[in-house]
């Protein structure tokens, strides 16, 4: 290594250890149902779905700069299409994923339209789309309005088999979606995505395909949230449009991402974990729990807009699942090599939320 030239790294020692750690955790989770009670398996499934939701909303808002308050539309459609497909005779488990593909396909024409709106207009425009879709789904005879229906065909599997299959499907979906997002962010598209996140106009001026990249994120997020909605349907069996098309889902996503750290890959996962714990401990308190969630989101947006992970990352130079590049200047390289780099020496992953 020449002492004169800066060193460009794709990760730190910590991030390499973290990479191995992630694989170990996923393997452990795959085996976990052996040791967990039925209730715990269900809760873990919910956690995986939360991680998907947080990661997908973060992909859209944190990386694409697209804050949507209507992402529940894809959650609801994921469940709705699964009901429809299963009703048409498709195997219920297969229909969960075909449904998500359909959701992704549906999101494409929506993106042509909505991506031309900006900031708040996009946010609330998506909400209108969600409200309209909810009303249209209610018109479907099969759904019977707000009464809803069930994924009846799932009943051919006995309860414990069903629970295990859904657990593994949720784990596999979460892993696959996170891997896709990670790969996307680390690849050449990732550079474009981060450029857009940091400054859209500047990115466009150096030839980044802004709209195309945003569209990719929009469709990916729709697909992922569609998967989450379909999986939620599989665990809950019943489909009531009101529950699935509720803006509460978007509120959860915003809470998780805002608290964890918007625009950081690890932040969304951390946020989902925290949300899961908070829900487990305080979910029973009903309305106060919701007030607490809203207030926390409010306070974080005001005082800690980078979220927990974003703040830690900035202060200590932590990188666990590194998607960016680090440039270490050669001066005093030996001093900083093993320790934490000061923000001035790390030129990547500096973001504005």
């Amino acid at each position, binding site marked *: 290594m020449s002492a004169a030239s800066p060193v460009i790294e794709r990760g730190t020692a910590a991030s390499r250890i973290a990479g191995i750690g992630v694989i170990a955790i996923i393997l452990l989770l795959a085996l976990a149902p052996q040791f967990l009670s039925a209730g715990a398996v269900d809760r873990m499934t919910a956690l995986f779905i939360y991680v998907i939701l947080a990661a997908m909303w973060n992909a859209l808002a944190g990386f694409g700069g697209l804050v949507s308050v209507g992402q529940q539309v894809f959650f609801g459609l994921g469940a709705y299409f699964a009901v429809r497909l299963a009703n048409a005779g498709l195997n219920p488990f297969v229909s969960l994923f075909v449904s998500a593909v359909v959701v992704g396909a549906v999101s494409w024409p929506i993106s042509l339209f909505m991506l031309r709106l900006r900031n708040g207009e996009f946010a609330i*425009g998506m909400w209108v789309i969600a409200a309209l879709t909810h009303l249209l789904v209610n018109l479907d005879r099969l759904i019977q309005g707000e009464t809803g229906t069930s994924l009846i065909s799932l009943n051919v599997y006995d309860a414990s088999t069903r629970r295990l299959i859904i657990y593994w499907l949720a784990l596999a979906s979460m892993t696959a979606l996170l891997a896709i997002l990670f790969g996307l962010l680390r690849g050449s598209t990732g550079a474009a995505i981060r450029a857009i996140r940091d400054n859209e106009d500047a990115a466009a001026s150096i030839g980044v395909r802004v709209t195309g990249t945003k569209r990719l994120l929009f469709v990916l997020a729709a697909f992922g949230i569609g998967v989450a909605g379909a999986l939620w349907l599989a665990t809950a069996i019943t489909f009531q449009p009101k529950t699935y098309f509720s803006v509460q889902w978007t*509120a959860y996503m915003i809470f998780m991402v805002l608290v964890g750290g918007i625009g950081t890959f690890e932040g969304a996962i951390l946020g989902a974990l925290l949300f899961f714990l908070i829900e487990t401990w305080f979910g029973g308190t009903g309305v106060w729990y919701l007030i607490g969630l*809203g207030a926390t989101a409010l306070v974080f947006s*005001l005082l800690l807009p980078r979220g927990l992970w974003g703040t830690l990352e900035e202060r200590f130079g932590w990188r666990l699942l590194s998607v960016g590049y680090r440039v270490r200047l050669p001066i005093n390289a030996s001093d900083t090599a093993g320790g934490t780099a000061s923000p001035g020496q790390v030129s990547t992953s500096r973001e504005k939320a």
Partner: protein
Amino acid sequence: MTNQIVQGILLGGYYALIACGLSFMFSVMRIINLAHGSLAILSAFALWLLASRFHISPFLGLAIVLPLMAVIGWALQRFLLERSARGGALLPILTTFGLAIVIDNVLFEQFGADTRSLAPFIGSLSYDSWEWPGSIYVGKLAVIIFVTAVVLLGGLQLFLTRTGLGRSIRATSEDPDTAGLVGVDARRANALAAAIAMVTVGLAGAFLGMRATFDPYAGATQLLFAFEAAVIGGAGSLWGTLVGGIVLALAQTLGAKIHPQGFLIGGHVAFLIVLFIRLSTSGIGLRGLLHLPTGKTP
């Protein structure tokens, strides 16, 4: 049919009323306040509380609630929006969304899930009507709401163009830094604009409560109505909001005629059609669907 059109136009007055605060705030501060609808519901609940507990008529109650809403607007701008707007254009969306969740659920905690109405407290006004030629019955309340909307929009327009305070708000909305150079206190102008917007929201909430029912979670629907009316009305003048409200109401009326559940669908579809037309005719680089050129003189 004529009857339904007349009713639709009158309902449009209500939508204009709830929309004008949203587009006003957006024009001045470039912020879409996602707690807009929830704050209208807050006002309705405040009036309901005054009426049911202390037997204060909702019209009299406005004398208490509207100043309160102005204070809320001022505080909202000073303590929340001003701070979060510094963090970029996306943060205020999250802040106001968080606020909406807090307001909705606090109202739910206080008042429960029951739907309420202010109609029982305004006597016969809630059902009184005039007969117009052609045996069209128009509700007195609907006419009052419509006239209030027209007066309010006209008053706002006059305030913005004819008074010093109005001019300082317009200057701030055009360019806060330059306005600061010529001695306009941008912070004060923004806080004032937020206070005015919240007064219109409070009024809209009052009329919502009188002409219909509301519950703690009704804010989201009102926010969508306000947004749709403002976008349909487009960037003309404040009067565009009135046109937007009327178009929205007529589309809903038409929707309800086509299908029993078509009322809301009709409104949403009309909104999307207008949006589509505006997006395809304006070309790229569309910034600010809601932005009213407040500098335009009438």
